[in-house]
């Protein structure tokens, strides 16, 4: 039991009852009491006017001693740096400058040395390069153990990585090896000036609430960061830094998994996380071949193609395109939902998009609740007209 309510101090004012995000506090015999659903978030502790509530948190000496610098993991796959690597350099630079420390970029791969110049140009002071055939493809054991060893050796205070399939897979392993905290899918980062702690903000409960999280006692402070949330910094031609080459073979890492084959989906842009614009289709498309209409619009807008669960379950498009609770979470600049009714399970996957366009026959479709532009009508009239107008405007 870590939440204490002092019966001598409690005045039954109910301030805590109202403050509890989980509705876990009730008054019993004129005393506040927390039930099983209490998640020890501390909201009540802050509002209690008589300081009757205390929560025991992990204390111990601040682990900051000796840890210095900001690191970003520059993901490299299939011959190129991931977009999020540049975004992390931009945000990492800002944080490092605020803390007055250096920005390091970690680069894993095979024959990737020349990419280091790009990392310097976008803001890295140091590039930690691990160039080895064993790192040509991604495996959790190789990437995870190697990064953990490097962090132990160089002791950065903050480590950021993209919340990509790769980052979300191996970074939890790294944090567990190191015995430190990790916050997933951050959409906001900051530094608390009083104690230099990294403030990590992320959506939870399908984006219905936001939470700000700190890691006071573990080092480094680690977070994965969503693609397309932060801006890449300016490109500075000829900017130089220090290149630290890691001797991977000498680390003696044995991988228990083996990458046999990488299959890229060449048919269409499937990397929904990196797309600025997404055109998504639902059951309203009626049949598989009608996705071609959306693909035509998507090609015009250099957009990715998304889908609702209904369209995926009908077998019209592969699961990799599914947006929503049981698919992917996306936040493009522009999301165009065509023939998607917009059940809440779909909304939680796309409601953080900058601008949402909804096209649907049913004026009562819930998708209109989150739309910035709602078009009530037949998508087979509207989409072709959009295509025509865009083509005309560009010619």
């Amino acid at each position: 039991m870590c939440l204490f309510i002092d019966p001598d101090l409690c005045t039954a004012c109910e301030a805590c009852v109202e403050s509890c995000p989980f509705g876990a506090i009730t008054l019993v015999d004129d005393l506040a009491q927390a039930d099983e659903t209490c998640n020890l978030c501390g909201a009540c502790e802050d509002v209690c006017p008589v300081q009757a509530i205390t929560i025991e948190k992990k204390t111990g000496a601040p682990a900051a001693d000796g840890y210095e610098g900001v690191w970003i993991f520059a993901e490299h796959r299939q011959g190129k740096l991931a977009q999020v690597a540049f975004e992390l350099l931009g945000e990492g630079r800002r944080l490092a400058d605020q803390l007055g420390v250096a920005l390091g970029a970690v680069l894993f791969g095979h024959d990737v040395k020349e990419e280091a110049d790009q990392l310097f140009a976008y803001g890295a002071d140091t590039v930690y390069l691990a160039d080895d055939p064993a790192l040509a493809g991604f495996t959790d054991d190789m990437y995870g153990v190697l990064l953990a060893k490097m962090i132990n050796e160089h002791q950065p205070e903050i480590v950021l990585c993209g919340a990509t399939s790769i980052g979300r897979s191996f970074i939890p392993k790294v944090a567990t090896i190191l015995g430190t905290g990790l916050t997933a899918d951050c959409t906001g980062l900051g530094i608390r000036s009083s104690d230099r702690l990294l403030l990590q903000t992320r959506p939870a409960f399908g984006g219905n609430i936001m939470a700000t999280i700190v890691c006071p006692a573990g080092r480094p402070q680690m977070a994965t960061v969503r693609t397309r949330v932060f801006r890449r910094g300016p490109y500075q031609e000829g900017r130089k830094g220090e290149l630290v080459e890691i001797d991977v073979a000498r680390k003696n890492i044995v991988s228990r998994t083996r990458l046999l084959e990488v299959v890229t989906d060449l048919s269409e842009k499937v990397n929904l996380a990196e797309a600025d614009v997404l055109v998504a289709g639902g059951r309203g498309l009626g049949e598989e071949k009608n996705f071609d209409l959306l693909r035509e619009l998507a090609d015009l807008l250099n957009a990715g193609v998304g889908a609702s669960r209904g369209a995926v379950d009908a077998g019209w498009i592969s699961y990799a395109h599914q947006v929503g609770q049981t698919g992917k979470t996306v936040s493009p600049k522009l999301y165009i939902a065509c023939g998607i009714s917009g059940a809440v399970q779909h909304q939680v996957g796309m409601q953080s998009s900058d601008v949402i366009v909804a096209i649907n026959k049913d004026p009562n479709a819930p998708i209109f609740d989150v739309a910035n532009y709602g078009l009530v009508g037949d998508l087979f009239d509207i989409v072709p007209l959009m295509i025509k107008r865009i083509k005309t405007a560009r010619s």
Partner: protein
Amino acid sequence: MDILVCIKQVPDTKDIKLDPETNTLKREGVESIVNPFDMYAVETALMLKDEWGGTVRAVTMGPPQAEQALREVVSYGVDEVALFSDRAFAGADTWATAYTLAKGIRKLGDFDLIICGKQAVDGDTAQVGPGLAQQLDLPFITFVRRIVKIELDSRTMVVERLMDDGYDVVETSLPALLTVVKEINELRVPSLKGKMKAKKIDIPIYSAADLEVDPDSVGLTGSYTQVIEVFAPKPRGNRIILEGETEEQVEKLLNGLTKDKVLSVKID
């Protein structure tokens, strides 16, 4: 094959809303469900049992009422279940959760395969699976969308894992831990026999003392991360329906998108 599935009881996300005035979660009418991704983990385990024989067990860490989630998976055909429940486990972050699960799983014995859902829909972190694998010193493969083959003689298996740009084919030694995505299978329906068993099954509950955990490593005390603030996301400027005939609507839309700078089309 002896398979263990980790499940989590979660609030049905679609019902959750934050009251913008009071910043509190509105809880009326919020049902508890088994995390949807975990159901695909259960199905994967059951399919492997159908093919290879063996047992399927399921565990969860949670408050006493989480036993309902365990009963539900029994109705689908899970053989045995266990609940790790103690007031001391409350407020655990992903590190403390993975630690506690690892202690509990070690108590239960050895498994050929541990399967988790890719993430829980309340926290959406996807961190407990890989963290648990590391705590148990097992290899793991995340976001698995297909099991290609299993070779029990050489103790290996090959799977396809979903990536951002396609998929990877990966081989792992066994025992291993997988996290699965929805694409991997379709759920069966609970059998009558399963439902009967679910009603009657005796669910063992393991406390902090039973699991012999380090008290400083569980629950909020054992959590490296701390939530310091919870707030409502920026409300959307929403429900704007464009008026007019189709041509007029499209005109207004493209003009609006150009003005919003999300589309680079010049429309007169």
